[in-house]
């Protein structure tokens, strides 16, 4: 069993020595709706990435070719552990390539 830490185990002054440690926290339970990117429709305009409050849109340098033969150098995907499902990405998407799908049917 994991032992509970006592106050003596924590650094003085409430200092935290582990930058960016909230990445360990899973906030997916906050969501009612889950965004889903349609890679065929997506025009790689970066708008969802820009506006996401939770830095949950991942921009990767991965080539993707659509069925109509268009090749993009970037691919956007969603970090579902940190997405809270606010829907800003879906609302701001200029081509409506992001759909919000209910978590519970």
């Amino acid at each position, binding site marked *: 069993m994991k032992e509970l830490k006592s106050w003596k185990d924590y650094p003085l002054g409430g200092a935290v020595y582990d*930058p960016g440690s909230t990445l*360990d926290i899973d906030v997916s339970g*906050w969501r009612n709706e889950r965004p889903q990117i349609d890679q065929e429709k997506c025009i790689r305009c*970066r708008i969802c990435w*820009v506006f996401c409050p939770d830095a949950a849109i991942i921009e990767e340098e991965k080539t993707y070719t659509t069925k109509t033969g268009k090749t993009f150098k970037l691919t956007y995907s969603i970090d579902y552990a940190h997405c809270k499902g606010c829907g800003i990405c879906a609302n701001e998407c200029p081509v409506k390539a992001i759909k919000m799908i209910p978590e519970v049917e």
Partner: protein
Amino acid sequence: MTYELEKIKTLWDIPKEEHLVGGHSLCAGCTAATIVRHLLKVAGKNTIVVNATGCVEVSTTSFPYTAWRVPWLHVAFENAGAVASGVESAINALKIKGEIPVEKEINVIAIAGDGGSFDIGFQALSGLMERGHKVMFVIYDNEAYMNTGIQRSGATPFAAWTTTTPVTRRIRGEWRNKKDMFDIAIAHGIDYAATANPAYPVDMDSKFQKGLSKDGPSLVHVIMPCTTGWRFEPKYGITIAKLATETAVWVNMEYDVGNFSVTVPVKKRKHVREYLKLQGRYSHLSETEIELIQEQIDRKVEEINKRAGKEVIGPLEA
């Protein structure tokens, strides 16, 4: 002052690195996180952030976690300005002593909400600007004390509902006007002051960049639609921010060493109704009250056009 980052002109110039990571406990759809994310992208990793008490402070650093990847400190609600001044002075002292190389550039940024800057933190902010420390003060303005339960602040606009300016038989929301922080900052004789909007990220980021490149204090005042306190669905955060500029409720202005300019001109502005009707905090308004708010905005637009010397904010859309 040299500044290594290239000027941000399009969305693609925004740096990719994240210095405020996900997993924090700000509300879903909170635009404050968008603002701070962009601020740190622009500032880079050589940055010390001083954060006044407020939404961003309590929810990004629930002990023993932190969402920040830059040195960050919090002391109290009222003294973000004073602490930031101290940090800046300490850096200067260490440079004189030779502990830090003189050419090393360290950005000191103070972040506060409207409570931590308009009301409680005002004297520390005023002192910081008057003493001329090289600190950028960023205000994310959600127009009330959202963190403690939507109490009114000096930034609450006319007619807005809050829990301390309720809608009853005798009062109909806030009956006083919003404080003009932009002009107060300019009156301190600082080099750079600006108002920004997260719905215009390129404009906002270039303002952060300009503010950081100044040798003295600078202030960037950013509007921040609050899903909880303004009573709207989380997905409309950016839509409402955009409408604020399109209706001229919020004007993106800039004051750069004596030059006043409006950075996002609006050719034809929308009726303020478009902005108000999306928000629950204005749901009690009657048609006469909406017209009264529109009149106030018309007057403000006229003033700004006069100040800019040309028509930057156009007439009302027919």
